[in-house]
């Protein structure tokens, strides 16, 4: 039997599911073996996603589109998985992130509670499935797989704070799932299909009488994803949930909010793209306004955060806000920049979550709170050092590595050169300004300029907050400052930063790819055609079933 390339599309879902199920058979005491198994799975996924990246990048104008028919059903009846450029990028990001988080967790966190490794892989399977699926209800199932695993992971190493925020996180997500189902069933009730490509064909043809129902369905569905993405005012659960999770889990959670963003992006362009009839551009202005509000909320939150973990959680909201603004503005150039920004910022956020845990480890509890409070009330350090001690002590090597990583993360998240955050933000800003330079004045020009301003200001807010955190942490005169850090924990952080650096060095080819991915999202003709013309393989001796 020949191995067709389409099989690569199912591997990112199937492999983690299988390994996770197999790992359940072993006792948790074998945690080194389990960690190696998870790591091997993540590396295999990385290899598969690189294959997908190469495949989608090649082959002519529209690229190769991997359409996998589950159970060999025709796409009209069955479920399809689709790998295009955007999906391949997201799967690759997940693999990099997952591998780094697992290496980090293998140092100590994976022994802190039962079934960490299986839950971790179930989460990865759900995320990959959500990126690859071409069917709305299947999307719901993958979402639930992802969420169920995330509930378990959030409660990993249970403490009171985790259980408290976990309770709220689960309640919010259960409500969001109900909302998701209402949206899906409304859309099904109007259009009679759940296949995303077929929906794109049917949406422009809906009767005017039913159109409002369809738009309501789409809006309700969007609300569920926006709650996941953390758009204001649906994001109040996010900081406490993300900052109370153990750090490798929080690092993987960085991609969960991007799942929401990605699906909003894909569905809004597929169903309500520019030439899809009367509903075109549905809610785009709302996404822009919501994104701007999210940016404001995130920036204020970052500045107001007292602990570094909470600061990082608010930086997640800033990152989501940036993405939503970019989606709201629209246009291929903006989208390409946003893609670039999304990959870089997700990796940087993950690195920062892990880094913060290492930094906090060496410090007494509540040191941050104390530092920020003292600053707010104008207390200076009372104990001025005598002159002979002002020479300074050498910074310990471990702390220097942590400090440099912290600076790199700051530059990445604030969008300063020389890192990928800068390139991504410049690309977004140039895209937004370019819309007007092109002479096609859009009706929301004022909002566009607000977007430009807020994108820059939010970067400034992140930078100020992180500088303050960094100064209080690394330049403080404290006795309890040498954290007990093993090499295994520094390697993944450095690796993530190096990936971001590589993204900057190879910004040219990366941007070419992201531009193609954005063009593919904006003009999904190739996607729709590839899915609808996919035909089942003939069974030997029986021919094709309907």
């Amino acid at each position, binding site marked *: 039997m020949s191995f067709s390339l389409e099989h690569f599309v199912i591997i990112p879902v199937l492999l983690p599911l299988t390994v996770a199920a197999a790992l359940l058979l072993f006792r948790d005491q074998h945690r080194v073996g389990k960690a190696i198994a998870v790591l091997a799975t993540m590396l295999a996924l990385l290899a598969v996603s690189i294959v997908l990246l190469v495949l989608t990048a090649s082959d002519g104008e529209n690229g190769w589109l991997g359409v996998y028919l589950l159970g060999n059903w025709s796409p009209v009846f069955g479920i399809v998985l689709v790998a295009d450029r955007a999906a391949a990028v997201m799967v690759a990001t997940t693999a990099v992130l997952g591998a780094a988080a697992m290496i980090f967790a293998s140092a100590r966190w994976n022994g802190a509670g039962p079934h960490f490794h299986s839950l971790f892989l179930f989460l990865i399977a759900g995320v990959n499935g959500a990126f690859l699926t071409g069917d709305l*209800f299947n999307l*719901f*199932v993958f979402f*639930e797989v992802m*969420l*169920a695993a995330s*509930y378990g992971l959030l*409660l990993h190493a*249970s403490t*009171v704070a985790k*259980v*408290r925020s*976990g*309770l*709220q996180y*689960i*309640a919010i997500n*259960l*409500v969001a*799932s*109900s909302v998701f*189902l*209402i949206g*899906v*069933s*409304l859309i*099904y*009730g109007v259009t009679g299909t*759940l296949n995303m490509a077929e929906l794109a064909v049917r949406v422009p043809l809906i009767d005017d009488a039913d159109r409002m129902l369809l738009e309501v369905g789409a809006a309700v569905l969007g609300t569920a994803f926006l709650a996941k993405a953390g758009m204001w005012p649906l994001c109040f659960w996010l900081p406490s949930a993300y900052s109370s999770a153990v750090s490798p889990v929080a690092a993987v959670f960085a991609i969960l909010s991007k799942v929401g963003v990605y699906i909003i992006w894909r569905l809004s362009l597929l169903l309500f793209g520019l030439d899809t009839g009367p509903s075109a551009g549905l809610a785009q202005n709302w996404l822009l306004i919501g994104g701007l509000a999210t940016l404001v909320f995130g920036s204020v939150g970052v500045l107001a955060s007292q602990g570094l973990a909470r600061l990082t959680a608010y930086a997640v909201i800033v990152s989501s806000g940036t993405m939503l603004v970019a989606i709201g503005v629209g246009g291929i150039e903006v989208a390409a920049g946003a893609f670039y920004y999304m990959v870089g910022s997700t990796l940087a956020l993950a690195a920062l979550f892990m880094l913060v845990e290492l930094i906090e480890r060496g410090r007494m509890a509540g040191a941050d709170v104390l530092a920020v409070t003292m600053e707010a009330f104008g207390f200076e350090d009372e104990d001025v050092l005598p002159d002979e001690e002002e020479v300074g002590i050498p910074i310990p090597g471990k702390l220097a590595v942590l400090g440099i990583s912290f600076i790199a993360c700051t530059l990445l998240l604030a969008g300063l050169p020389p890192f990928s955050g800068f390139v991504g933000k410049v690309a977004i800003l140039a895209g937004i300004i370019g819309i007007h330079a092109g002479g096609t004045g859009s009706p929301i020009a004022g909002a566009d300029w607000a977007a430009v301003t807020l994108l820059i200001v939010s970067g400034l807010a992140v930078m100020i907050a992180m500088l303050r955190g960094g100064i209080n942490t690394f330049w403080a005169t404290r006795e309890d400052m040498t954290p007990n850090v093993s090499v295994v924990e520094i390697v993944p952080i450095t690796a993530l930063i190096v990936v971001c650096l590589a993204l900057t060095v190879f910004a040219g080819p990366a941007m070419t790819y992201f531009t193609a991915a954005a063009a593919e999202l904006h003009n999904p003709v190739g996607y729709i055609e590839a899915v609808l013309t996919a035909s089942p393989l003939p069974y030997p001796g029986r021919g094709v079933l309907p």
Partner: protein
Amino acid sequence: MELILAIGIGVLAGSGVWLILRPRSFQVIIGLSLLSYAVNLFIFSMGRLGTGKPPVLDPSIPMDTAAFTDPLPQALVLTAIVIGFAMTALFLVVLIVSRGLTGTDHVDGREPGQ
């Protein structure tokens, strides 16, 4: 029949939302259950209502879509029920853990005013 179903869904959803907004975690879980019943009925109704129509095609009856009911929403409801049930069970566990760790059944993990 449409009216009764609509009222039923509305009452379930309304009570569910009200209970979710209550401060005790037991009320929240009952609210979530009611909401998921409402959603399940809603999905079911999106396949159009009808009585006495089988969802499975029967080769002996001549092909006529009016004689059958849409099987897809029924399959979706089944999946949604299973997932919703599992999630409710999981939430119940977390709720009990929270009760055990914090000593209160308030959703914030502490009594108001403490």
